[in-house]
């Protein structure tokens, strides 16, 4: 009985990821069938490169969601730090690109700390707090940019190279994403803080009894999210060689969608790094593949929405069935 039970649960959680993987493969086959240009080295490189920023943000968002929170301000944070980093490099072209990245991260961290403070200390619901900050940060971005864009020619090539250069034949963006992925994998699975994030989301009351400092965890989670948004902001601006006030407007929804597709529960406690990565890849495949097979751009949003809704319902129904089966198997 116990053995069976365990098998079942393990299978389910794997099943979700395999299901996702299966869906990606299926989608790939369909797209490939309709347009053979899909599975080419060049296109796959593009796909991975374009998914890099999304997956970086999705990993951060995963932690936020695990603590039963949400962060809608990341698009604005991304724009703000990208804008400030771009302004800095355009004023000081000799600045080392690493420093530019650091500036971006720093701005992001400050934004994250503000949100973390509002959520953990003041006790505002994350969705409200981040909505408010989203407005404020977006306004700030327009303000510091003075309505202007920072364009390619104003950026030193060292800065633009962050996104275009490669190391060992792999694009830097992808390398950064991989490093962050590996770090997160280690962080959430093998460090105490990482596990405490899950514990807090799984049962906030027990967490208190276990002596977990929930304020600290919220601060860490939102600060990390902010830092990652800041990093993503620099990468974004470097990649597109342009910083605008409305950069990544509404991007937070895509990020949250990637998490949800990846099986992160908004009720907290559940979410796997690999799942989130798959979720981001799925969206990447859709973004890359739909134009290739001539799907009207106006249908993309609807298709994306439908897929997300189906994924959410599918997760819930599977979970419900498993619970019922478990109960059925109990002998009275």
């Amino acid at each position, binding site marked *: 009985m116990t053995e069976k039970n365990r098998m079942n649960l393990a299978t389910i959680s794997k099943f979700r990821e395999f299901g996702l993987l299966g869906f990606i493969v299926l989608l790939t086959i369909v797209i490939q069938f309709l347009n053979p*240009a899909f599975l080419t080295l*060049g296109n796959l490189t593009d796909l991975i490169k374009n998914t890099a920023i999304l997956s970086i943000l999705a990993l951060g968002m995963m932690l936020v969601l695990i603590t039963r929170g949400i962060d809608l301000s990341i698009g604005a944070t991304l724009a703000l730090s990208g804008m400030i980093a771009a302004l800095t490099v355009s004023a000081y072209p000799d600045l080392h690109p690493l420093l530019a990245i650091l500036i971006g991260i720093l701005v992001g961290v400050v934004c994250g700390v503000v949100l973390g403070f509002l959520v953990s200390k003041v006790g505002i619901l994350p969705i409200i707090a981040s909505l408010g900050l989203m407005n404020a940060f977006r306004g700030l971005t*327009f303000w510091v940019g003075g309505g202007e864009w920072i*364009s390619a*020619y104003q950026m030193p090539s060292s800065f633009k190279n962050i996104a275009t250069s490669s190391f060992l034949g792999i694009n830097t963006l992808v390398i950064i994403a991989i490093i962050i992925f590996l770090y997160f994998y280690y962080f959430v699975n093998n460090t105490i803080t990482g596990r405490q994030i899950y514990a807090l989301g799984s049962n906030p009351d027990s967490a208190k009894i276990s002596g977990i400092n929930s304020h600290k965890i919220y601060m860490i989670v939102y600060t990390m999210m902010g830092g990652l948004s800041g990093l993503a902001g620099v990468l974004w601006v470097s990649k*597109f*060689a*342009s910083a605008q006030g409305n950069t990544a407007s509404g991007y937070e929804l895509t990020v949250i969608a990637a998490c949800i597709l990846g099986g992160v529960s908004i009720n907290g406690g559940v979410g796997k790094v690999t799942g989130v990565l798959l979720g981001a890849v799925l969206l990447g495949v859709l*973004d890359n593949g739909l*134009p290739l097979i001539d799907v009207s751009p106006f249908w993309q949003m609807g298709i994306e929405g439908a897929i997300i809704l189906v994924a959410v319902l599918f997760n819930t129904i599977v979970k419900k069935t498993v619970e019922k089966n478990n109960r059925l198997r109990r002998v009275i």
Partner: protein
Amino acid sequence: MKKFSLLSFLMLVLLTLLVACGGEETGSDEGNGDSDGGGDDAGERHAIIFKSTGNPFGEKLMEGFEDAITEAGDEAILRAPEQPTVEGQIQIIEELISQQVDSITVVGNDYDGLEPVLTKAKDRGIKVLSTDSAVNGNSRMVHVNQADPEAIGRIQIEAVAEMIDNEGQIAVLSATSQASNQNLWIEWMQKELEKSDYDNIELVEVAYGDDLRDKSVSETEALLQSYPDLKGIIAPTTVGIAAASKVITDKGLQGEVVVTGLGLPSEMAEYIENGVSPWMYLWNPIELGYLAGYTANMLVAEEITGEVGDTFEAGDLGSYEVTETEDGTEVLLGDPFRFDADNIDEWKDVY
């Protein structure tokens, strides 16, 4: 109880503060220090509404408008909603009507959507004109057009044909523009392509990048993947052309695929210099704004009425005539300006 009143008080202070610095901001930020305050006797007041804030093209357009207005000793009000929506523009126009401005110049986010509010403005005796992106003939007295859509469409085909020696596949990367001008240009492009000179040129696809960086990039990549023999991309949109050029640059396809279209010199300087885009076009937004400003002034002074055949002198720009279009009347600024490696340096810092 004490805490409650204290907090209420704090909140009031905060609010007052916000309002106060809000007022201050207007003065310094937009460089239109003379726009706030002021009563009726400070001369006429002319307002311009762009599509959304934080757009360099719009900033320059409004700058030109302001120049024309202040030259005439009047006051310019520069507005833009935060998002490029009709709702935002309607609200701003209502606010301007309440302020009893003398003229409203609008860069429409929608061809028809502003008709009711602009009609209300006209009914209250406000002169209404549009520029850059038109609103329909009923809602405006005159449209100040950058260039003839036909010319814009045809010139881009001519350019790309010259760049690829009249042979090969080309694609268009458009926005999903709210204003109809994009589609009009593309229509003219297709008409131009019917000419026998272009028999060897094939327009393979019109893709839409939504004026979003990430989307434009993936659309460009999809074009390159789907059509390995693609020779040229026409992007009649500022975000699209820069995104497409960036992709070509990053993929090292300089010389193999050319990009042209309509772009901001500042955004495109890099790619004109590196040869991805040998040249591209745009009109001068400062001059466009300037002309719009002059036209607004003329309308308010009742020297013109927006009827066909009206003529006026627009400062340094010379003389202009109101002409007829399919829907309403317009003033045409001139042909689009060509930006290439020779002149891009002097323009990239301008806008």
